[in-house]
């Protein structure tokens, strides 16, 4: 009798414990759900299927590979409307010989069709050409930059990759016509472009090459302490200090001036960039490592 009662008490205890545990667990879930609903749950942005970042090496087989691996039959792809068809140029690209900010806007954004194989291969070949020109730019100036630093700059250049638009990670770019230098989650240098940039490459190739050269050369970060010797004299002459130009989240005129100057040397845009023609820059441009009498004339 005693034993039976003991067993029943044991069973009841286990039951109560299970109920208490379950109740606590449910309570936590309910709390979490409420908080999530209020703070964290937001409608997901529907993005088109992400494309893997294309690793670009200066080798033609990469280009061929990109063309050979479409995600759908080639015939169907060729028939598709291009995503750049609806792109519209907002403003003018130059005014009285001076370059102006302007880009092709894409109203459909991520809802538009990804670039065709042809569009993408054309963009890749322009990208490869510009990258090769930047490598040549470096080699031609290794005497002034120094062998060690030239090697580092070449290494950085090789690491840059181009991501195929539209980008699922940065959906705002899907509406734009710009190319930007950024870094992926591992910190590797990456170029991302809005689909409108492909339209720029078709209609204003010279300007597109300049923009690509500028974006790629932004991997030569003038705030990198190891590269301080390369851009330091110029930066000092311009009156820029590391704190104002290199602090996190502070806009850097130093980085834009250096990359714009490099792009001007490698792929002139066909118009004058005002910043490269202002008085202070003209005074300091001979402090740039690669500056020579001929490059000064080009500016």
């Amino acid at each position, binding site marked *: 009798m005693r034993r039976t009662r003991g067993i029943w008490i044991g069973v009841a*205890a286990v039951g109560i414990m299970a109920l208490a545990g379950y109740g606590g667990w449910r309570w936590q879930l309910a709390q979490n759900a409420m908080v999530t609903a209020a703070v964290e749950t937001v409608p997901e942005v529907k993005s088109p299927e992400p494309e893997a970042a294309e690793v670009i090496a200066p080798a033609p087989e990469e280009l061929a590979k990109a063309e050979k691996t479409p995600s759908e039959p080639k015939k169907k792809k060729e028939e598709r409307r291009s995503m750049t068809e609806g792109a519209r140029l907002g403003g003018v690209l130059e005014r009285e010989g001076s370059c102006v900010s302007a880009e092709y806007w894409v109203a459909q954004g991520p809802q538009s069709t990804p670039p065709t194989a042809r569009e993408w291969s054309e963009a890749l070949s322009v990208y490869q050409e510009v990258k090769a020109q930047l490598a040549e730019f470096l080699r031609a100036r290794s005497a002034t930059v120094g062998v060690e630093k030239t090697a580092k700059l070449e290494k950085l250049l090789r690491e840059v990759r181009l991501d195929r638009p539209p980008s699922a990670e940065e959906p705002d770019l899907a509406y734009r016509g710009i190319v930007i230098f950024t870094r992926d989650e591992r910190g590797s240098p990456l170029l991302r472009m809005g689909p409108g940039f492909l339209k720029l490459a078709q209609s204003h190739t010279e300007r597109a090459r300049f923009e690509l050269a500028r974006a790629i050369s932004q991997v030569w970060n003038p705030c990198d302490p190891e590269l301080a010797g390369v851009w330091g004299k110029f930066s000092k002459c311009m009156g820029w200090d590391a704190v104002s130009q290199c602090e996190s989240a502070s806009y850097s005129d130093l980085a834009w001036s250096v990359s714009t100057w490099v792009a001007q040397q490698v792929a002139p845009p066909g118009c004058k960039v005002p910043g490269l023609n202002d008085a202070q820059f003209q005074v300091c441009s001979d402090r740039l490592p690669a500056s020579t009498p001929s490059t000064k004339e080009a500016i």
Partner: protein
Amino acid sequence: MNFPKMKSSPKKQIPALLILLGVTACSSLHEQPALDALSQIKDQAAATPFVEGYFEFVGPHAKWAGPSAWVIHIDAREGEFAKVKAQPPVAPESAPRSPAQAGARPQAPGVTVQAARAQLANLAAMMAPDRRPQSTLSEACLHPIRVRLIRQDGAVLDQIGCRSVTGWESQVSKATGFFMAPHGEG
């Protein structure tokens, strides 16, 4: 098979059971302080929600002729749908595909006020000081992003960062994609 007999009486079992029950209850409540903190955020968001936001993708100085600045303005103060405006607009005024793309907003349906506020609250939560990365002096900022969020009571949360695939800056890009996208019925 003979098991050893356990000598115990119900009187002896009751205190042990009470202790066990207490331990179980405590284990389910040990996260109470964290939940309280989140509840506070929830309550604050419900009491004075973020009802307006400006996302600015800052461009370089005009003298570099680089990417132009782009500003998205979200007004979720009243009505059924939030008003979303992009400057410059991505589509000409005469041929709007969605209200935000035209630069103006009278077209419905769009982002509901509730969904817009949830999106702004989510961004604000990501911008919390303890979730921001520490300042570094190693990387030039080429593409700053400026965000201004305004609560219903007028309090402002203003922050500037640098375009990135992590942190709150990446959420700005995603939120822009959300607000700019054409939304279905309801």
